[in-house]
């Protein structure tokens, strides 16, 4: 999963917020619950202490300390109720101490003697054996004769502690389950909300200069995504218009240049015929004619490309064997290679049927071979191969030439792009050869790509759809 994707980030933040929310809630309920439970225990103990006040004040004198203890035990039976009662004097001496409870769960004598509290009523916790705790409350009493007493009552916190443990267990199990459920739901929601974004991105990626007339699907949801896809569609439309304008401009410009070029050429041609011309002048005019010729090729290349790009190449659509065409073309160009002492080999063993404009596709072979021969030094090798691979006709041209620098590689199919302007000009050509190849391939629903290692050679690969197999082949013998 892409950790920078919106989906992941949304889900991450959502999980973080949820976890901290649940955590805070857990801590808060834990604290509140403990307070409330402890408070309840404390209240009941304080109530008991208050009940002991009149007994202490009224009965101590008539009964004496010993009988007072018996009276307390008779009334409240702290040992049977798991309670603790201690009455101390101000000097720390104990007036009464309740007996250990029946189950011996704590020893009243082991509880630390009280520090004399400043407040009338207070409470504290004292540790017992085995991690248990006892809640002790103290109540100050002043007898009319001036004696001060401290009534302490206490109860073990066992029930509270058990409740808190239960609550902790509940939180420990419940919170992760809750988190998992919430995250699962969140994931489904995020996925549903962002699904259209994925679809829009996928369709946007499919759209290139050759199918700019296509549009993105617009989800009829009235939300931001609908607005986004509508906006993107408007942008694609503006792109399409700009591209159409540029194609029309190239087509019109190259068309308009034809007549002036005809005139220029005709005038100079007739001028060259003049017998009074000196050899120098004839040479100069020849140079001008060469440039007119060059210009003518550029104009024709541009015009041909604008027609290909506009999809006007389908007029001569036939089914033919690309391997045979390539082999024949290589044969026709053999002398060009031979002239530079370049080994030209061709592996094209027939039967690679494609559909299209024969002469246009031949131009692809011619341009690629011409390029390969042009940029391969003498004694090098150029090889041409045609084969059917995975339902595609694949034509490859490999050379041992000077290669193309990596930074230039993505641009070689652009119009007028030249790796090295000075050298290319000297080699001739209008700088349109490869872009024409690309336009022809695109018009045939195919593509062309190049790889290259400088000083080692270049490799061009053309991929075209294979023709559908013919069911009837009446002219085929054998």
């Amino acid at each position, binding site marked *: 999963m892409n950790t920078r994707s919106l989906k992941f980030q949304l889900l991450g933040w959502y999980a973080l917020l949820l976890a901290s929310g649940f955590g805070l809630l857990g801590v808060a309920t834990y604290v509140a619950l403990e307070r409330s439970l402890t408070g309840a225990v404390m209240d009941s103990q304080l109530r008991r202490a208050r009940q002991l006040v009149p007994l202490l004040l009224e009965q101590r004198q008539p009964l004496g300390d010993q009988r007072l203890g018996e009276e307390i035990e008779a009334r409240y039976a702290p040992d049977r109720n798991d309670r603790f009662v201690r009455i101390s004097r101000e000097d720390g001496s104990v007036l009464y101490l309740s007996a250990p409870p029946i189950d011996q769960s704590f020893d009243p004598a082991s509880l630390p003697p009280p520090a004399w509290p400043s407040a009338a009523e207070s409470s504290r916790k004292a540790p017992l054996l085995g991690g248990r705790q006892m809640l002790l409350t103290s109540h100050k009493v002043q007898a009319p004769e001036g004696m001060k007493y401290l009534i302490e009552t206490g109860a073990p916190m066992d029930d509270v502690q058990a409740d808190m443990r239960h609550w902790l267990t509940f939180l420990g199990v419940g919170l992760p389950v809750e988190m998992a459920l919430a995250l699962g739901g969140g994931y489904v929601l995020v996925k549903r909300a962002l699904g259209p974004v994925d679809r829009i991105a996928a369709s946007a990626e499919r759209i290139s200069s050759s199918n700019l007339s296509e549009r993105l699907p617009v989800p009829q949801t009235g939300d931001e995504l609908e607005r986004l896809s509508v906006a993107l569609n408007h942008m694609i439309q503006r792109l399409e218009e700009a591209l159409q304008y540029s194609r029309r401009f190239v087509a019109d410009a190259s*068309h308009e240049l*034809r*007549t002036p*070029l*005809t*005139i*220029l*050429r*005709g*005038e*100079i*041609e*007739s001028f*060259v015929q003049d017998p009074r011309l000196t050899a120098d002048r*004839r*040479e100069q*005019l*020849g*140079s*001008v*004619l*060469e440039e*007119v*010729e060059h210009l*003518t*090729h550029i*104009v*024709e*290349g541009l*015009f041909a490309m604008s*027609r290909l790009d506009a999809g*006007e190449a389908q*007029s*001569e659509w036939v089914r033919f064997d690309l391997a045979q065409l390539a082999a024949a*073309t290589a044969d*026709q*160009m053999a*002398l*060009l290679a031979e*002239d530079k002492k370049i080994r030209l080999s061709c592996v094209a063993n027939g039967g690679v049927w494609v559909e299209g404009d024969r*002469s*246009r596709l*031949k*131009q692809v*072979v*011619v*341009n690629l071979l*011409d390029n390969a021969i042009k940029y391969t030094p003498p004694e090098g090798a150029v090889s041409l191969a045609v084969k059917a691979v995975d339902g595609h006709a694949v034509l490859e041209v490999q050379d041992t030439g000077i290669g193309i620098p990596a930074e230039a590689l993505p641009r070689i199919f652009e119009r007028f792009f030249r790796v090295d302007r000075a050298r290319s000009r000297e080699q*001739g*050509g*209008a700088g349109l*050869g490869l872009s024409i190849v690309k336009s022809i391939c695109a018009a045939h629903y195919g593509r062309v790509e190049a790889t290259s290692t400088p000083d080692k050679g270049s490799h061009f690969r053309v991929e075209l759809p294979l023709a559908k197999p013919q069911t009837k082949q009446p002219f085929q013998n054998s």
Partner: protein
Amino acid sequence: MRLLLIEDEKKVADIVSRGLRAERFAVDVAYDGSEGWELASAADYDLIILDLMLPGVNGTELLRRLRRKGCNAAVLVLTARDATQDKVENFEAGADDYLTKPFAFAELLVRVKALLRRPLPSRNPVLRVADLEVDRLSQQVRRAGKRIELTSKEYALLEYLAANAGRVLSRTMIIEHVWDQSFEGLTNIVDVYVRHLRSKVDDPFPTKLIRTMRGAGYSVGEDGEE
């Protein structure tokens, strides 16, 4: 031979008519469709050179009307459009040949002559240029009586040059006749073949027959012959 040129671009009309007159054709020029229609209706022309992009009237439409009226002149169509559909449409309308602008005048001339069935410089099965003999039947080439072995492309090139001896043939024309349009403008293939041809036809002999006209193309002929 009487020719009618219907071309609204005055300069193009001038060049073409001047060149054709130099070849001793009688040339009338119409600068628009209606003038062309009047001239074509009034006189009997052997050949009409028709530009398709005419003001006011569509060249193809004019051609149709001429054919319906029973005009039998050969028609060579000039156009800046070279889409195959346009070609088909014009052939159906009655055009006999087709030439795309910009063209070399030499090419126009070759086509005009072919349409008029005026013999090209030689229909003779054996073409002779000085001491060079090109036998079209046996496809054998001799110079000064000595047999010269050529590859088939070299032979095709030499035959084309010899058949148009004395005329300058542009690289574009040579490519279109000896190879095909796919090679147009992209390769120095003509130069390479001419060099090979020279090494066999000219180098062993004192007189050179194949001449390079810079910017224009190649021609075959003895020095001084025009």
